[in-house]
C-alpha cells in the first residue's frame, strides 16, 4: 500500500545537514541527535522510524526549533528550509516560519489541545497570527473549511465545541486542521496515530495522504510502526541512539535492509516473527500438578493438526450464527462438536455465561441510577485449558472490563463465571482469596504495574507467603529466583527496585509476579502495547515458551492483529460490549465473518514487502 | 460597694486607677452647689463649682478642644443600670448627675443638684432641697419627681439592675414633696445612708418612663443615656458599640455655674497595649496609665518625657489585692482552716519583695481591707514582716514536716503541702507575682502550683468553693464595709465570703458598725474588727497599687487632691490653653 502518486522531484524542500542536538539536563549532556542528515523533497513524505528514545522526536523538534532554549544546543548542523537556515534565524523570524510554513502535530491528541478554548478559537488563533489582515468572519470561514477538509461531521457546530467534547480521532483531526489552516509547506507529524485505535488510525492516515495529494505539502512523519511506514512513506530513515543508521527509498529499505539494526527491527515485526519451533519437545514432559489432559501439549506440537483444522471448521459454523444470541450459539457449538472437541469444551477452564458488567450512571438529587454503561453485555465465552485466547476490539469495547470481571476485580452485574467448574460470582472477598491463586493478571503499563516502593523480591514473595507457597522465606526466594530464570532475567534482579529496569524487563517481572502463584489462568491486558517491536517480540516468544512449559491458559487482550495471529489459538472479537465473532485465529483473521471484524482487519496497516 | 467584678472588665488596664476614681465620683455624685456657703465670692458660684471656677481664672485658661482618652476593651452598652463595667460608668458620669458630691479637698459631701439636705434624728430620713435651675440636656427641668422616679425605676424587677437594687434595698421609700424637695426613708439605720441616697444618678423621668412598659427594650439597649450633666450624647437613644468609640458633645444647656472647657469628650477603643501606648506617643490620646515596668522604662524615654506630665499617686479608694485561703472544701476544713498555717503563709509571703520586684516599689503593703490613710485603720497595726523562721516554726507547730526528705513538707498523714493558687490569667503582673510566691514558698518546703484560669471558670470555681487558694483584688471606697467579704452570713453558698471564713466575734462587730451612723462611734468598731482580721489572716493582704499615669502636656491645671489626680474630675477643672488646642470642631 505505497502512496498512490509520485511527484517529480525538483530541489528538496528541507535539507537537514549534519544535525547534532545535545540536551543539557544537569550532569552529562544527552547526545539526543548525532550527525543526522536527510532531505525531504517537495510533496513527499519522509518517515523516521526507530525505537523509543532513539531521537526521532528531538530531531523533529530541532527542525521546528521547539526545544527549550535553556537545555538544547546544536554543536553542528544546518537545517535548510526553502533556502534559509532555520538554525540561524532569529526568534522573531522563526515564529513567522512556525505554523505558517512548517506545522506540527503531536502524538497525544488528548492533551495537545488547550482544554479551555474551543477548537474554533484555537484554529482561528493560528490564522490571525499569520494573516493579520484577515477579518474575523473570513477567519471563521477558513476554520470551518479546514474542519470540513479533515472530515469532521457538522463542522459549523463542532467549531464551538471544546476539545473534551470530541473523541480522540476527532481531536487528532482538529490538530491536523489547525496545522493545515495556514497551508504550510511542511507538516511534521510526531506519531500522530499511536494513541488511536487501528480503525481510527486507518482513517487518519488516509486523510493525511489525501491532504498531501491535495495541497502538495511535504511531510516529516515519525512512527515506530513499520506498517504505517509502508503506507505513508516515500522515504525512510531509521534511527538508533541518535544516529540515522539507514535512509533511502521506502521500498528499498523495507525490502532490502542493509543495516543490521534495520534488519533486526523488521524481523521483530510480529508478521515476520518465526513461529516457535513446531518440533519442540512436547510439554507433557514437564510434570504439571494440575490435571492437564495429556493431549493438550500435543495440540500445539502437531501444529496444524487435524484437531485444529476441525476446530476451525467448526468455528466457521459458529461464526455463521455469531450475530444471533450468544448462548444459542454456544449451545449450537457444543452440540455440533465431535467427541474429542466436546472433551475440550467440557474441560474448558473458564466458563463465562451471560456475563454483564454494567456501570451505573447516576443523576439527580439522590444520585439515582438512571442509565447504565454496558461495558460487558451478555457475554458467554469458554476458554479451554491450555489455550491462548486473544480478545480484540476497538478501544472502549469492554475488553479490559471483561478481563477484570473474570478475575472478580470488577463485580459483575449478572451472569456466571466458573473456573475449573467452581463458581466465582457471589463469593465473598474471603472465600475468593484462596481462589485467587489460580488466576492472575498482567498489565499494559510497565510503569504502573509494579509497586515502586517494593523490592522485586517482595513483590514476588508476598503473594506466595499469603497463599502458603513455600515453607519459609528462603524457599520462597528460591522459587522467585527460578521464576526470574524462566523470565530470562538475572537472579540478582530480585534485589532491585522496579525503576531500575527497562520497560521490557519490567513487563517480564510483571509476568513473573502473575506466575508466582503458579496459576492456571492469566489475563494479559495489552501487555505489549507500550513496548517497542523488538521488545514485544522477545516478550511474545517468552510467553509462548512459558505457556509451553507450564500449560498455562491465557486470555490475551490486544488490538494488534499481528500479535494475535502470531500468538493465539483462538480469537474473540468484541464490539460494544458484545462478542461478535469467535473462532480459531487463522479462521477469524483469514475469513472474517462479521462486518466489524472485517473492518478491523482492513484497518490494520500491514507491512507488505 | 465593692465591685470586684469590674476588675474583670478592666483586665487589660487593671492599673487604670484614674478611671476608678472617676467611676467612684460617678457613683457618688459630682459637683455641688453649695447651699451651706452663705456668701459666695463675688459671683454666684456654688461650692461644688469653686475649684472649676478657680481654674477659669487662670491666665492661660481657654475653652475649646477635645479630651481624648482610650478604653482598653470594647463597651457592651453605656445605658445606665444595665452596664456593668467601669468604662461605661465613666461615660455616664459626664452625662448624669447626682444630688450631692464629695469635695476633693475635704472629702466632705457638698450639694450638686441638691442645694442642701437634712438628716433626721434617727438617721432614717434624709430630705434634699433641689436647685430650681437644673435642667436635662434636652431642656426639660429636673425636679424631685425625677429623683423619686429613679428609685422606682431601679426597684422595678423587670429592669435588669439587680446590682443597684441590692444597694438601694435598704431604702424604704423616696418621695417627692413638691417640685424641689425629695425625701428618702430608710428601713434601718445605715452608715452609708447619705451617700446611698445622694449618690444616685438622677434619671430623667420623661425619657426613661416609657421603658417601664417595655423593660426588655431597656435591658437590651446599647446607648440610652440622657441626663443633666455637662456633656451629652449626640443622639441619646442610638449609640451602638460598633462605632468603635464613644463621643460626648458639650451640653449647651448645662445649668452649672461653670461651663466645662472641652467641646467634646472622646474615648477611642484600643485593645492592644502597645497600640495604646503608640497612640499616646503620637499624641492621639491624652493620657496613658502604665504598668510598673512600663512606667519605669518610660521614665527614661525622652519622647514620652518630652510630651508628658507623669503622676504616681495612691488614690484613697484604691483597691487591695490579697490571697484568700479556702477554709472549707467539699464540706471539710482544709489545711488553711488552721490559723497557724495562714499566719505562716503570711510570714512567707514577702510583700516587701513583691512590691520591690514585681511592682518596682509602686505599691504599698496592705495590712487589712482598710487603707493606711483611712480612719477605719488602726495606725498601730503594722504589716506582717516576712519571716521564714517564724513561718517554719508555725508550720512545724501545726504538724508539717519534711518526713520523706524530698524537700516538701508533709502533714501527719504524709500528705505533701502542695496547693494550687488560682488566679486570673490575663494579668501579667499577677502571673509574675505568683511565680515569685512559688519561689518564696519553696524555701519553706511549700509547693505552690500556679493555676491560671479564665474569668468564667474562675467564678464557677469560686461559686463551688472549688479551689485551694486564690489571689484577687477588692476595690475600696472612702469607707469600706467588711460585711460582704467577711461576715459569716456571706459564707453560705453563693455569698462573697467564698473562703468560708467564720468568726462570730467579727460578725458582731460588723453588724454593730453598720448600724452606727455616728462616725465617731463607728470608727473604733471598724478598728476592732481590723484587729481580728489581722490576727486571723483569712486573707494574706498583699498591697495597694499606685496609679501611674502619663498625661499630655497640653492638658493644664492637673492637681493632686485627696481623691487622687483631678484629671477629668467633675466639674471639669482641666483645660487646654488656646495655643495647644488641637481640635477645632
Amino acid at each position: 500500500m505505497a502512496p498512490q502518486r509520485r511527484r517529480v522531484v525538483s530541489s528538496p524542500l528541507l535539507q537537514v545537514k549534519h544535525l547534532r542536538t545535545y540536551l543539557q539536563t544537569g550532569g552529562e549532556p544527552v547526545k539526543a541527535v548525532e550527525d543526522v542528515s536527510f532531505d525531504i523533497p517537495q510533496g513527499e513524505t519522509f518517515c523516521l522510524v526507530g525505537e523509543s528514545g532513539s531521537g526521532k522526536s528531538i530531531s523533529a523538534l530541532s527542525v521546528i526549533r521547539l526545544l527549550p532554549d535553556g537545555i538544547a544546543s546544536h554543536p553542528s548542523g544546518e537545517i535548510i528550509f526553502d533556502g534559509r537556515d532555520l538554525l540561524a534565524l532569529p526568534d522573531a523570524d522563526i515564529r513567522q516560519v512556525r505554523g505558517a510554513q512548517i506545522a506540527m502535530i503531536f502524538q497525544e491528541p488528548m492533551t495537545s489541545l488547550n482544554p479551555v478554548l474551543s477548537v474554533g478559537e484555537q484554529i482561528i488563533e493560528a490564522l490571525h497570527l499569520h494573516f493579520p489582515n484577515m477579518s474575523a468572519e473570513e477567519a471563521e470561514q477558513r476554520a470551518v473549511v479546514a474542519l470540513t477538509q479533515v472530515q469532521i461531521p457538522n463542522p459549523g457546530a463542532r467549531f464551538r465545541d471544546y476539545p473534551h467534547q470530541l473523541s480522540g480521532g476527532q481531536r487528532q483531526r482538529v490538530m491536523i486542521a489547525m496545522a493545515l489552516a495556514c497551508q504550510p509547506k511542511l507538516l511534521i507529524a510526531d506519531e500522530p496515530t499511536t494513541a488511536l485505535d487501528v480503525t481510527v488510525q486507518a482513517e487518519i492516515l488516509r486523510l493525511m495522504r489525501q491532504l498531501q495529494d491535495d495541497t502538495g505539502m511535504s511531510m516529516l512523519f515519525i512512527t515506530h510502526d513499520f506498517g504505517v511506514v509502508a503506507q505513508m512513506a516515500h522515504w525512510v530513515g531509521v534511527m538508533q541512539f541518535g544516529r540515522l543508521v539507514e535512509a533511502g527509498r521506502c521500498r528499498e529499505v523495507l525490502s532490502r535492509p542493509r543495516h543490521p539494526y534495520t534488519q533486526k527491527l523488521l524481523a521483530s515485526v510480529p508478521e515476520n516473527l518465526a513461529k516457535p519451533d513446531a518440533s519442540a519437545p512436547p510439554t507433557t514432559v514437564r510434570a504439571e500438578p494440575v490435571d492437564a489432559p495429556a493431549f493438550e501439549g500435543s495440540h500445539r506440537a502437531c501444529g496444524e493438526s487435524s484437531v485444529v483444522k476441525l476446530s476451525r471448521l467448526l468455528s466457521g459454523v459458529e461464526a455463521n450464527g455469531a450475530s444471533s444470541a450468544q448462548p444459542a450459539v454456544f449451545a449450537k457449538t457444543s452440540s455440533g462438536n465431535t467427541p474429542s472437541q466436546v472433551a475440550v469444551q467440557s474441560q474448558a477452564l473458564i466458563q463465562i455465561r451471560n456475563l454483564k458488567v454494567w456501570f451505573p450512571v447516576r443523576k439527580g438529587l439522590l444520585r439515582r441510577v438512571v442509565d447504565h454503561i454496558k461495558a460487558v453485555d451478555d457475554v458467554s465465552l469458554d476458554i479451554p485449558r491450555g489455550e491462548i485466547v486473544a480478545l480484540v476490539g476497538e478501544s472502549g469495547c469492554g475488553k479490559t472490563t471483561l478481563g477484570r470481571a473474570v478475575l472478580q476485580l470488577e463485580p459483575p452485574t449478572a451472569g456466571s463465571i466458573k473456573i475449573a467448574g467452581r463458581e466465582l460470582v457471589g463469593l465473598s472477598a474471603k472465600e475468593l482469596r484462596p481462589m485467587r491463586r489460580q488466576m492472575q493478571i498482567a498489565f499494559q503499563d510497565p510503569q504502573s504495574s509494579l509497586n515502586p516502593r517494593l523490592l522485586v523480591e517482595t513483590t514476588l514473595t508476598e503473594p506466595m507467603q499469603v497463599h502458603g507457597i513455600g515453607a519459609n522465606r528462603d524457599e520462597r526466594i528460591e522459587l522467585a529466583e527460578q521464576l526470574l530464570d524462566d523470565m530470562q532475567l538475572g537472579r540478582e534482579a530480585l534485589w532491585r527496585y522496579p525503576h531500575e529496569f527497562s520497560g521490557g524487563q519490567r513487563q517480564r517481572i510483571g509476568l513473573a509476579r502473575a506466575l508466582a502463584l503458579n496459576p492456571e489462568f492469566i489475563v494479559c491486558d495489552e501487555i505489549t502495547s507500550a513496548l517497542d517491536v523488538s521488545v514485544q517480540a522477545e516478550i511474545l516468544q517468552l510467553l509462548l515458551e512459558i505457556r509451553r512449559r507450564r500449560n498455562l491458559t491465557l486470555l490475551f487482550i490486544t488490538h494488534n492483529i499481528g500479535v494475535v495471529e502470531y500468538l493465539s489459538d483462538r480469537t474473540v472479537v468484541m464490539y460494544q460490549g458484545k462478542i461478535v465473532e469467535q473462532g480459531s485465529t487463522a479462521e477469524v483473521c483469514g475469513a472474517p465473518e462479521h462486518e466489524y471484524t472485517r473492518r478491523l482487519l482492513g484497518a490494520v496497516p500491514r507491512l507488505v514487502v | 460597694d465593692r465591685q470586684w467584678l469590674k476588675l474583670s472588665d478592666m483586665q487589660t488596664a487593671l492599673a487604670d486607677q484614674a478611671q476608678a476614681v472617676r467611676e467612684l465620683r460617678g457613683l457618688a455624685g459630682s459637683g455641688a452647689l453649695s447651699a451651706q456657703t452663705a456668701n459666695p465670692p463675688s459671683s454666684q458660684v456654688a461650692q461644688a463649682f469653686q475649684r472649676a471656677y478657680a481654674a477659669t481664672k487662670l491666665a492661660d485658661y481657654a475653652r475649646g478642644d477635645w479630651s481624648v482618652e482610650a478604653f482598653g476593651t470594647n463597651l457592651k452598652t453605656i445605658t445606665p443600670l444595665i452596664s456593668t463595667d467601669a468604662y461605661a460608668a465613666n461615660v455616664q458620669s459626664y452625662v448624669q448627675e447626682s444630688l450631692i458630691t464629695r469635695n476633693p479637698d475635704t472629702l466632705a459631701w457638698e450639694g450638686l443638684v441638691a442645694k442642701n439636705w437634712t438628716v433626721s434624728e434617727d438617721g432614717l430620713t434624709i430630705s434634699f432641697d433641689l436647685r430650681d435651675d437644673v435642667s436635662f440636656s434636652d431642656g426639660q427641668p429636673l425636679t424631685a419627681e425625677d429623683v423619686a422616679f429613679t428609685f422606682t425605676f431601679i426597684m422595678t424587677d423587670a429592669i435588669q439592675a439587680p446590682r443597684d437594687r441590692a444597694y438601694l434595698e435598704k431604702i424604704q421609700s423616696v418621695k417627692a414633696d413638691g417640685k424641689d424637695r425629695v425625701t428618702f426613708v430608710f428601713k434601718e439605720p445605715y452608715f452609708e445612708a447619705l451617700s446611698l441616697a445622694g449618690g444616685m444618678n438622677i434619671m430623667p423621668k420623661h425619657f426613661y418612663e416609657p421603658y417601664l412598659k417595655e423593660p426588655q427594650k431597656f435591658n437590651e439597649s446599647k446607648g440610652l443615656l440622657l441626663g443633666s450633666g455637662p456633656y451629652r450624647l449626640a443622639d441619646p437613644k442610638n449609640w451602638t458599640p460598633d462605632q468603635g468609640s464613644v463621643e460626648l458633645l458639650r451640653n449647651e444647656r448645662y445649668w452649672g455655674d461653670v461651663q466645662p472647657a472641652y467641646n467634646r469628650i472622646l474615648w477611642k477603643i484600643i485593645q492592644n497595649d502597645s497600640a495604646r501606648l503608640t497612640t499616646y506617643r503620637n499624641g492621639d490620646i491624652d493620657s496613658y496609665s502604665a504598668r510598673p515596668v512600663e512606667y519605669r522604662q518610660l521614665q527614661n524615654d525622652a519622647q514620652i518625657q518630652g510630651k508628658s506630665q507623669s503622676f504616681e499617686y495612691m488614690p484613697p479608694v484604691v483597691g487591695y489585692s490579697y490571697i484568700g485561703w479556702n477554709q472549707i472544701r467539699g464540706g471539710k476544713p482544709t489545711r488553711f482552716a488552721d490559723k497557724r498555717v495562714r499566719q505562716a503563709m503570711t510570714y512567707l509571703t514577702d510583700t516587701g519583695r513583691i512590691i520591690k520586684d514585681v511592682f518596682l516599689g509602686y505599691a504599698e503593703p496592705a495590712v487589712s481591707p482598710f487603707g493606711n490613710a483611712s480612719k477605719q485603720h488602726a495606725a498601730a497595726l503594722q504589716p506582717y514582716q516576712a519571716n521564714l523562721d517564724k513561718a517554719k516554726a508555725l508550720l512545724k507547730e501545726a504538724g508539717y514536716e519534711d518526713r520523706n526528705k524530698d524537700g516538701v513538707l508533709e502533714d501527719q498523714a504524709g500528705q505533701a503541702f502542695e496547693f494550687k493558687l488560682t488566679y486570673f490569667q490575663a494579668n501579667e503582673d499577677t502571673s509574675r507575682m505568683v511565680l515569685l510566691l512559688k519561689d518564696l514558698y519553696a524555701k519553706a518546703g511549700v509547693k505552690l502550683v500556679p493555676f491560671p484560669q479564665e474569668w468564667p471558670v474562675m467564678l464557677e470555681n469560686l461559686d463551688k468553693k472549688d479551689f485551694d487558694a486564690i489571689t484577687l483584688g477588692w476595690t475600696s471606697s472612702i469607707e469600706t464595709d467588711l460585711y460582704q467579704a467577711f461576715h459569716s452570713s456571706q459564707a453560705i453558698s453563693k455569698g462573697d465570703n467564698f473562703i468560708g471564713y467564720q468568726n462570730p466575734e467579727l460578725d458582731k462587730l460588723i453588724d454593730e458598725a453598720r448600724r452606727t451612723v455616728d462616725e465617731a462611734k463607728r470608727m473604733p468598731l471598724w478598728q476592732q474588727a481590723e484587729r481580728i482580721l489581722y490576727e486571723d489572716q483569712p486573707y494574706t493582704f498583699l498591697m495597694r497599687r499606685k496609679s501611674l499615669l502619663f498625661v499630655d502636656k497640653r492638658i493644664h491645671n492637673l492637681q493632686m487632691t485627696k481623691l487622687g489626680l483631678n484629671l477629668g474630675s467633675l466639674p471639669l477643672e482641666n483645660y487646654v490653653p488656646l495655643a495647644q488646642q488641637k481640635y477645632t470642631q
Partner: protein
Amino acid sequence: MLTYLLRRLLLMVPTLLGITVVVFAVMAASPGGISAQTLVGGMDMKPQEKQALLDYYNKRYGLDQPAPLQYLRWLNNVSPIGFVDDEQGHKSFSLTKGMDLGTSFQYGRPVADILAERIPITLLLNLVTIPFTYALAIWIGMKSATERGGAFDIGASLSMLALWSIPTMLAGVLLLGFFANIQYFQWFPTAGLSAREALDMPFLPHWNDSGFVRGFLLDRIWHLVLPVICLSYGGFAALAKLTRTSILENLHADYARTARAKGLAERDVLWTHVFRNSLLPLITVSAGLLPSLLAGSLIVENIFSINGMGQLAVEAVKGRDRELVLSITWISGFLTLVGYLIADFCYTLADPRVSYD
C-alpha cells in the same frame, strides 16, 4: 446544574448539624459554662436574685433540661421551619416562623444584632484583602515561573517562604511600631478603621479653603493599609507559590507546545493559553482562603483595634456565650461550605471540561 446545586445544599445539612452537635456538646460539658456566665452578670446579687436570674435563663433557654433537649430546642429556634408555641401554649408546625439565633448571654442582646454589627467589618477587611492578595500573588508567581531559575525566581521563592514563616503577631506589632509611630515613621494610624474627624468629612477627597481634605474613603483606606498587609502576607506567599507551581506545570503542557508550534510568541502562549489553565487550581484554593481570613483576623483585629468577627469569636468562647458561639460556628461553617460551592461553581465556568448535572 440545578439538581447539582440542590444536592450540594442538601449535603450541607448533615455537616452543619454535626458541627452544632459537636460544639453544643463541648459547650455543655465545658467548665465555666452557662451557669457561671450567669454568675458574671450577677456577682453582686443576693442569692435569691441570682436564683431569679437563673430561673429566667432556665425558662428562656431550658437550661434545667437535659442537654439533648436543650439542643433540640436551640435547633428548633434556629431552623427556619419548625415548631412554634401559640398563645395557648400549643405547639404547631410552621414553615414561616423564621430563624431566631437567640440572645447572647454575655451581651444581653440578640445574636443577630451582634453579628450584623461585626460581619460587615470583617467582610470589609476580607474584600479589600482578597483582590490585593490575588493580584500581587499571581503577578509574582507568574514572573518567577517564566523566569525560572533566575535571580527573581530564587529571590521571590525564598522571600515568599520567609514571609510565610513570620508569626502574624510579630509582624503586626513591628508594623505598628515602625510605621505608625512618631518615633520612626508615622505614616499610618494606630487603631481603628477611621479617624474621628473623617466621619464628618465628605466621602471623596477634595481641596477646600483649609487645604487638602482626605475624605472618608481615603481615610478608610489609610486605616486599612497596615491591617490588610498583616492579614494578607501569609496567604499571599502561599498563593504566589501555588501560582508559580501551576504556571510551571502548564508552561510545559502539551497544548502549550502546540501553541508554540503555531508560531505564537512566548508572551501570547503565556497569556492566552497557560494563564487561564493555571488559574484553575487557584479557584479551588480561594474557597479555603475565605474562612481562613476570617479566622486569622483575631490577632490582627486585636493589634489594630478592629471589632471584627475574630475578636467576637474569642470573646464569645471565653465568656462561654453559648448562643453566640453556636451561631458563629455554624454560620462560619455554612459560609465555608458555600465558599466551596461557589468555588466549584466558578470552576465550571472557567473549565469547560467540568460540568455538574
